[in-house]
């Protein structure tokens, strides 16, 4: 399992549009990918799951990936978080 922790800097938190971008990237990998926030964790391939977390600005999230492409997945998710101005 690979994992990485990020702090959301975007003023609006993990909102609908960037969440969609994140989910679309995650859905492209075979690894199981989860998003942990506080005590909750959701499937990062689920848009409803990610949005229902309601991660606010300053929220600390951890992404874990388990599977054959876990490292590439984490790298790409890191890149999309940056590209979307989330971290």
């Amino acid at each position, binding site marked *: 399992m690979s994992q990485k922790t990020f702090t959301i800097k*975007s003023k*609006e*938190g993990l*909102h*609908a*549009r*960037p969440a*969609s971008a994140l*989910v*679309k990237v995650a*859905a492209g990998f075979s690894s199981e990918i989860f998003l942990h926030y506080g005590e909750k964790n*959701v*499937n990062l*391939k*689920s*848009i*409803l*799951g990610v*949005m*229902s977390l*309601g991660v*606010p600005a300053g929220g600390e999230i951890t992404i874990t990936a388990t599977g054959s492409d876990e490292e590439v997945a984490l790298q790409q998710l890191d890149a999309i978080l940056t590209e*979307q*101005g*989330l971290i």
Partner: protein
Amino acid sequence: MKIQGIAAASGISIAKIVKFEPATILEQTEIGTTEQELAKLTQAIEDSKIDLKQLEAQTAVRLGASEAEIFGAHLLVLQDPEYIGGIEALIQEGIGATQAIEAVQNQFVTLFLALDDEYMKERAADINDVSQRLMRKVTGTNESVSDYKEPTILVAHDLTPSDTAKLNAEFTHGFITEKGGKTSHSAIFARSLQIPAIVGATGIMSEVQSGDIAIMNGETGEIFINPTAEQLEHYKALRQVQLEKRQGLQALLHEKTVTKDGHHVELAANIGSLDDAKKALEQGADGVGLFRTEFLYLERDTAPTEQEQFEIYRDVLTVMGERPVVVRTLDIGGDKAIPYLNMPKEDNPFLGLRAIRLCFANEDLFRTQLRALLRASSYGNLKIMFPMISSIDEFRQAKQWLDEEKEVLFEQDVEVSDFEIGIMVEIPSAAILSPVFAMEVDFFSIGTNDLIQYTLAADRMNETISHLYEPFHPAIVALVKLVIDSAHAQGKWVGMCGEMAGDSAAIPLLVALGLDEFSMSAPSVLAARKQINILSKDALQEKLQQTLQQSTAEGIRAIWH
């Protein structure tokens, strides 16, 4: 009776109420085997995807890409492993498909309503919308359609994006909903249709009947049901004041647009259909500066035939008479799904195979459109414009194909009249090379939406960087100036068909720069005419000189504020 709601879109309307109640979804009486129920679900998902793609395309044309985005989000929900997986798991336990959908719907709605964020709470409506669509597909329930043919104020518990996309815009004079906030879809749609909207009108559905008369004031959120004579009189007068404010502009309907120092410009409209062309005339447009032909190609299984296209172009040209009509050839790319074009999925459709590039790759498709345009040329004042031109070769190639088709038509004794050929300047390379292009084209039309996006590398739909999308950026002003000066040096004219052309903050700057034609949404034409008729181009030259010395957008905005 008075009901107080939350003001969501301004304006006053007085009209009959129609209560909008979504069709009750039929009960699923027969539950099949697990396999059968799963198959029903799969079919319902596929059918819903087709619907949503159509709604997305339709809404993009009617209201713009950002309004259409919601249906893209719905498509994503249909691919959500937790949502679909949850429904499938319940079906595996022996529950029927509709009950399973409803259970998972409720589970997610509860989750969203519990969030401490108004925007997220509103998204519960999206889950309901998608789930209802799936349940309708499973049970074969028809969608409710609002069928009314007189001015109406629509009262609903809540309106889903799918409901609003199907509304009769002509007769809908206002929305009132029990639920929803300022970011709800009915509010957003109301603002784009320029009609009043009130949300959060608790209890209204049980208090009113269809056919009741209502006064709604979109500034204050007040609703009067079956008002007294005094109330009617008061609000009719208020509405009159609003109308007169608009009608003050009506006096300018048949006027020319000329600055105080005698500099003449043309105010044209952006249109997408024959109806739009008629409205443009009613709203005082001097012509059509951008006829988007995309809509001819959307929502269908095969490309439009030459004859079909010819008839539409002919009708638009005929309606506009001597007034110029700039027709943009097909401008479409991988962000839109056109099944019959087999477009490959692209990572970056805005830098991909789109517009003229797609036309070159689909030669028959493009030549068909060119022939239809040539045949229509004798019916009015046609100008043909090619989109997404980045180098002179592309323009030459498009023009060559046009000439070849013209030859073919000549041989068939089809009448083809003279017309101008121009390009859309929306890629920075075309703007930079405008002195070269100006020697070969008849005109330019600056497409600022894309020119700004490509020059500043900023997607304005992306909230996180939308602040970088800046029409007053010195680089944009410099490019616009270069394009105008290059054209004028060769005796050619320049139009602009992006949003900047209708932006009252930008208009004086564009007049000072010498822009010849401003193409905007038709409702903006008269206000722009009023604004330009009191400007003096000469007097603005000093401000223009200061502008050209600025290094920041703030500096430029301060000058034209």
